[in-house]
């Protein structure tokens, strides 16, 4: 009911704003082909599209937001996404302990801008004096990865060989061998996978036994009153801000729709278990009433 009414009201208010839209030089995703059969389709926001098209469409979204990505995140979440990421890194508290022999192999998937990757490295250095562990940053989108590389060149790791950038599809990871990574992180990325389960299965494949899978992703609010307010905010204000700041309404419309489509906490936990992971208690941790949630899994 709530969703419907919000969608309805947003739909009505949408038209005049769309008509005002500036002529954008940005690449907007091409209109999806009509779906051909039920089995070959997936969702792209609230639209139903052919599976082979989703990757391209998501690619279009992120290519067009890449340069403004961080600014927009800051504006939309009032800076809270930084707190979430900080908490995520603290919760993992990963790093080679002083008495251990083997450095860790980190893999940050969909880590385009490198927030999590550099945060993890800095945390390992500060807390455990770990100057050896290696980081691989993988992203399907070369434009997002370029943003990360620009930032990397300014960082203190730029003259070491500890960080590597790879253009990789998270569902297959064909350049990353089996049992090769210790820590797999993905922040606000898994939602955009065409086949989320395939992404989880691949995470299981690339991790060493004893490796840890950690995911920070938007989730669902349990409290219906808060949820109503949150939905109203995300469906009416966010796309408008996307239009005003990044001059790209469609991409931000996609972002909020994809958040709504992502499985609930318990459901996603079951998917992690299905991939073969052991999920320790508590299965997940809600952040800000469940706007986002952290999930982890251990490969035993």
């Amino acid at each position, binding site marked *: 009911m709530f969703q419907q009414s919000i969608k309805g009201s947003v739909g009505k208010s949408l038209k005049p704003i769309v008509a005002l839209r500036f002529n954008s030089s940005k690449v907007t995703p091409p209109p999806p082909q009509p779906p051909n059969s039920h089995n070959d389709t997936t969702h792209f926001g609230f639209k139903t599209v052919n599976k082979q098209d989703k990757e391209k469409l998501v690619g279009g979204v992120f290519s067009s937001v890449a340069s403004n990505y961080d600014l927009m995140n800051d504006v939309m979440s009032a800076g809270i996404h930084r707190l979430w990421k900080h908490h995520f890194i603290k*919760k993992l*508290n990963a790093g080679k302990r002083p008495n*251990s022999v083997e450095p860790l192999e980190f893999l940050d998937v969909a880590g385009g801008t490198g927030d999590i990757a550099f945060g993890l490295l800095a945390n390992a250095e500060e807390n455990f004096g770990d100057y050896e562990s290696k980081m691989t940053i993988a992203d399907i989108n070369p434009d997002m990865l370029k943003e990360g590389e620009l930032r990397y060149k300014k960082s203190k790791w730029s003259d070491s060989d500890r960080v590597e950038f790879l253009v990789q599809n998270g569902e297959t990871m064909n350049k990353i061998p089996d049992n090769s990574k210790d*820590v797999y992180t993905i922040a606000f990325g898994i939602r955009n996978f065409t086949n989320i389960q395939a992404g989880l299965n691949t995470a299981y494949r690339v991790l060493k036994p*004893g*490796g*840890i899978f950690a995911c920070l992703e938007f989730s669902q609010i349990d409290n219906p009153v808060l949820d109503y307010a949150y939905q109203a905010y995300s469906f009416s204000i966010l796309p408008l801000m996307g239009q005003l700041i990044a001059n790209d309404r469609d991409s931000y419309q996609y972002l909020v729709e994809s958040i709504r489509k992502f499985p609930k906490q318990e459901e996603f936990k079951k998917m992690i278990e299905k991939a073969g992971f052991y999920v320790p208690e*508590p299965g997940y941790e809600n952040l800000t009433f469940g706007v986002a949630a952290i999930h982890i899994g251990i490969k035993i």
Partner: protein
Amino acid sequence: MLKRLYHSSSHIGSNTIINNNLIESKIFNNAIKLIPKYGFSKNCINESIKNLKYSDSLQSIISWQSDKSYEFQLMLYFLKQKRQELENFTKNTKVEGVDEYEKLSKLIKYRLSLNSPIINELSQGMSQLILPYNLNESIDELYNLSDDLAFYSGDKSHSFDWYAKRFTIGSIYVKSELFMLNDTSENFENTQEFVDKKIDEFKMLSDTYNNIEQWAIFNGISLINLIKSQLIRG
């Protein structure tokens, strides 16, 4: 997630304190063996993971499960493990005793004897428990212990002394444990004597309480009867 708010002895297996098959339990069980070497410190957990040939990535499981320090988590796990051992002990051996006080005294002595391998480090661990920000969980655990001690000694109370008993048992346990820290006698004989003395006081106190209660009820009824008889006489 719903937390179970009741405890039932008829649901077998639903109240296990620790599950030894879990990977985090394996890390902690091994870490506890290292306490005499490293004290209650992070090193126990670091070395435990190393000894078990796990990768350091598993450290995340410990920081994931609680925001508390590793030292406190280790101490809390130690307490839970020993409470589990106490439960196993009551299942495998019949605790003999003329009344529940004698059984209680035996159970407390058994539980204290489990501290002996790490007695030199115990004060370190206990200092973690009394830090203000850890107090909540420590008191929960102490309550659970005194509840178990009362239950396994055969306590059947169902009125206000249910609370009073658990409170008193908890305080006897803490006093005895503190006494034990400074006890240098062989096999902690002085501590055992101390426990006996405290339990005797407890028994005397509850006898006194019962006597006063009986006296008060008797006099109360007498008073009502007296009033009634005066009323009938008009």
